[in-house]
């Protein structure tokens, strides 16, 4: 039996522990829907599960239409920000970063402010198809550019395959770096398709498309997104699932009854 099938079988255990019940309830799933949840997880078709619990409202790609009523601005500039296929004319202080414009002026708070100095990657967004750091990008420089934030990855209320994979593989703990990790991963899919090299690429002269990235390659190429919880193994696994198109083995599994008993005694 393949490991992934064993994992699914394990997930289909009959009895639910209190801890498990609590976790599933916190995820918005009542006890009675637990079997349904497991069935869907084990079918590895997170899309059905996800689209029913993560509604398009939660992942609104439409920016809020906040009035453009700037307070006192120094060196004001006008810029039309095109974000997630919507355009919004804004009047901004020349100092405003794209990150702050997204969060404070467009209420797109999916993009996170981590270090604000280009050291952590939490603010990663996709600009004209390329991953960029919104904290080091002045909003003033973004006229005419197509910006995609994590909110814009949802299409018709359905999550991007990378978002689903992060859920399936538990690619986070606190979740703060996750929007950046996901935007970065989505852009990396394209870089691999285009055959872009990295520092760990063996031979720079050998140029080919549709690269099949090794784990070492994925880790090097994702090094701009720091996860202080250390969910790296799961993030790599999530990326691999979408990158390879294969049903990848999650690094987590449901505890067996015996394991739970043992844990309680310990």
């Amino acid at each position, binding site marked *: 039996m393949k490991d992934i099938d064993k994992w699914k079988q394990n997930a289909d255990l009959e009895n639910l522990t209190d801890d498990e019940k609590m976790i599933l309830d916190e995820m918005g799933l009542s006890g009675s829907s637990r079997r349904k949840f497991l069935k869907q997880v084990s079918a590895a078709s997170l899309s059905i599960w996800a689209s029913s619990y993560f509604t398009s409202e939660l992942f609104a790609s439409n920016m809020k239409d906040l009035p453009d009523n700037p307070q006192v601005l120094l060196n004001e500039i006008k810029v039309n920000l095109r974000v997630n296929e919507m355009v919004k004319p804004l009047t901004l202080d020349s100092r405003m970063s794209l990150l702050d414009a997204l969060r404070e002026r467009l209420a797109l708070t999916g993009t996170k402010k981590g270090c604000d100095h280009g050291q952590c990657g939490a603010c990663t967004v996709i600009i004209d198809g390329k991953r960029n750091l919104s904290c080091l990008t002045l909003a003033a*420089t973004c006229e005419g550019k197509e910006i995609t934030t994590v909110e814009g990855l949802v299409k018709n209320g359905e999550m991007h395959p990378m978002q689903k994979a992060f859920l399936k593989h538990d690619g986070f703990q606190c979740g703060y770096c996750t929007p950046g990790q996901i935007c970065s991963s989505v852009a990396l899919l394209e870089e691999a398709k285009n055959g872009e*090299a*990295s520092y760990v690429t063996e031979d720079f002269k050998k140029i080919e498309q549709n690269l099949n990235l090794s784990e070492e390659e994925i880790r090097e190429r994702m090094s701009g997104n720091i996860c202080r919880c250390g969910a790296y193994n799961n993030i790599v696994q999530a990326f691999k699932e979408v990158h390879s198109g294969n049903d990848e083995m999650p690094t987590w599994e449901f505890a067996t009854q015996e394991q739970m008993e043992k844990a309680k005694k310990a």
Partner: protein
Amino acid sequence: MRPFTYTSATNKEQALKATTKTSHYLAGGTNLIDLMKEDVERPDQLIDVNNLDYKKITRNDKGGLSLGAMLSNSETANHPDIRKQYPLLSMAMLSAATAQIRNMASNGGNLLQRTRCPYFFETSMPCNKRQPGSGCGALNGKNSLHAIFGYSDSCIATNPSDMCVALAALGATVEVEQPGGSSRMIEFTDFHRLPGDKPEKDTNLEEGELITAIHLTEPVFADHYYYLKIRERSSYAFALISVAAGLQLKSGTITKAGLAMGGVAHKPWKLYDSEEFLKGKKPNQSNFEQAAEIAMKDAKPFEANKWKVDMGKKAIVRALTQAFEREV
């Protein structure tokens, strides 16, 4: 961040005309915006040059390729012609920073990166580079990561660029436009300067000059190349020490060597004597070790960064060995 006016230039004339003593050109911004947030850089005007048409890679009259100053680091490193003819440059550029930063950073901007000396970043500390005359905090402070070559009493900082180390090994010329309307060429090894008593000046650029292109010399290290970058973590960190090594071999003999180091001086440190020594020699361990000894003979480390001398020698031998052993 202090207030500044923002101007977006659509052509070079506009950019050059707008420049003043206190303005800065804005390209990728990965270093400049950060330093402005830290209150280290304080321009009162930013002239955005991102829309200038210096984004191509073209053939030059020296038989090499020329890099547009506004092309991003990732586009440059991944350009098929650069990967085939100057893989050393691709390797060095891809060792730097992260995919996000390389997508933003420009070639011209890479040459103008400022030091990562912590005394330069910390405005409560003395730093002659940030505030001329205030002293050098690192000289008698924490200097385990500082220069071992070419420093002065006023500054012992190092240049942080990886791309520039490869450019020093490869040989290049920098083309700049001047506010007066003329242009000039600067030999790459003369582009950056040693601190002397003017550490506030990292380069020999004159006020208002705008980098438009980097012209590479004829590609001779396409087969035997290696960029070794030693750092405190395996990715996304500045080099403690780096070595760019290129070898041209004919019938088992070195006909030309390109060697430069990063993390050891105020500028990319080209190893002229080692390059000269290797010419006509066999590519073997003993010659590589002698080249490394020659490279380090004038090193003047501080107590805290003595390790750079030993590590430097080993790094040179390893980079040369990797370059030689690479399968063609």
